């Protein structure tokens, strides 16, 4: 299989996803299959082709420098798991 268990653990760590041991086995198989699929791309000669990141040929729309937002902290924090005095709470961040 193209994907090792260690590969799965590495990308799970990068993605901040806790995986059960049996999930790891399953993903190892699935991701290997997807990689087999993706492998087909490698045979295509694209040496003269520019990557296409956005469909169409537009350039980014720029907005004027105007303050349009008002304070809606209460509404936004109504869906927050844990807040105190307007701050979002998380386990202590170590610097």
């Amino acid at each position: 299989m193209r994907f090792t268990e260690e590969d799965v653990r590495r990308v799970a760590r990068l993605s901040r996803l806790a995986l059960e041991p049996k999930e790891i086995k399953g993903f190892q198989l699935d991701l290997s299959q997807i990689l087999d699929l993706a492998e087909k791309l490698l045979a295509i000669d694209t040496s003269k082709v520019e990557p296409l990141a956005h469909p169409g040929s537009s350039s980014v729309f720029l907005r004027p420098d105007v303050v349009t937002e008002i304070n809606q902290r209460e509404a936004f924090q109504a869906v927050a798991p844990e807040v105190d005095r307007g701050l979002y709470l998380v386990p202590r961040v170590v610097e």
Partner: protein
Amino acid sequence: MSLTELLNQGLLEISAALGRREVSAVELATAYLDRIDQAQPELNAFITVDRKHTLQEAALADEMRVASPDLPWVGIPIAQKDLFCAKGWRTTAGSRMLENFISPYDAHVVEQLNRQGFVTLGRANMDEFAMGSSNENSFFGPVKNPWDLTRVPGGSSGGSAAAVAAGLAPAATGTDTGGSIRQPAAWCGISGIKPTYGRVSRYGMIAYASSLDQAGMFARSAQDLALLMDVISGHDPRDATSVNRQDAPCSHGLHQPIRGLRVGIPKQWFGKGLSDGVKAVVESAIQELLALGCEGVEIDLPMSEQAIPAYYVIAPAEASSNLSRFDGVRFGHRAAQYKDLGELYEHSRGEGFGPEVKRRILMGSYVLSHGYYDAYYLQAQRVRRLIANDFERAFERCDVIAGPVAPTTAFPLGSFGADPVQMYLADLYTIPVNLAGLPALSVPAGFDHGLPVGLQLIGPWWEETRLLQMAHAFQTATDWHTKRPASYSGVTQ
């Protein structure tokens, strides 16, 4: 016309009835809600139905109709895919992660529809974060196909498609990243359109793969799609990929003759992989177009077979990053147990996301990570350009491309349970269109063993009107789009 009959009509008929005061928005909404309640245990087309909220909107619509009698859509009910944020509505994206998320704002599409007075019937079920082709990936359970309850409705907008097909709503919103409008439309026997990338603002539509996602609509006819496109299209300064153009309304060009239009038939799309039944239906639909005066042209899309591999690099890459914001800090699911910040993230995300979402996040992180970016991600972007170039060349020889939407009809629930990656391969005719950013639609074209088959029409950038014009001509000449599943034909059981 009885209320029951009216519920199965198109937007213009419903609008006329509302205008003549034959029915009120509240009565209309109540009738649809009753149907939804009845069908919900079987179809599971909705994640959230909130009768009180809907009837409030309907009551407002009735007031609005008095105040603004010229607005045609005031009081017309629609279903919203649960991917569009709607203020005051629970917006879940089909995920446990957002099981309790009440959006504080409206998506652009929701806002546009609300402004015209449309009434939200409920929040349609979907594959989690729009990842899937069968609607089996919803945290809130799979949706069943109203034509055959043992089969899937397609995905990811399966709830929207099933709702319209079963007559639970005259229209519904959807999103299409790799076929998520066209394929369920085809499998549920209704019409669905995916507009040109940048035509409809993505603001407030929860992102799966930003460079591919596009909002669109489901309805019972091409005409209704055209009318709805005119409501949801247009520039929005809150989406930097929203294009500022002054296109004529889609509905204006609808009745233009299609005689003389060149229909491109991709030779690669009718070979191996396409089931015989679907092939026969699609071929006869194309014959119908030729009978209506179109000219058939064989075209070549040699790179389109690379679309699936390219998509399954690009879409997961974007998704892995787009879904990082779901971290249990500001909204969404937060794990009950964690001992530090790392565990807060890992447990919240591990519990909040389902397997398909995790699979794509992991794949995406992998192809973007050090040492694989050039080989996979950049290569996929290059192949993406080759696919777009294919279409560009093809449109030098034709005006519209016609072909199948999916290689088969709707498959039985659980068909790919042990082999999720095999399901990916079925999106081979829809994914190339998203990679190129083109507009495309699906219209009912017939049946294979009693299950609906769709005809896909693809146009050059910004040519939605041409597609709708052709689809409308097709629906004027045929009646496939009027067929309803027997058990949901509107007759109260």
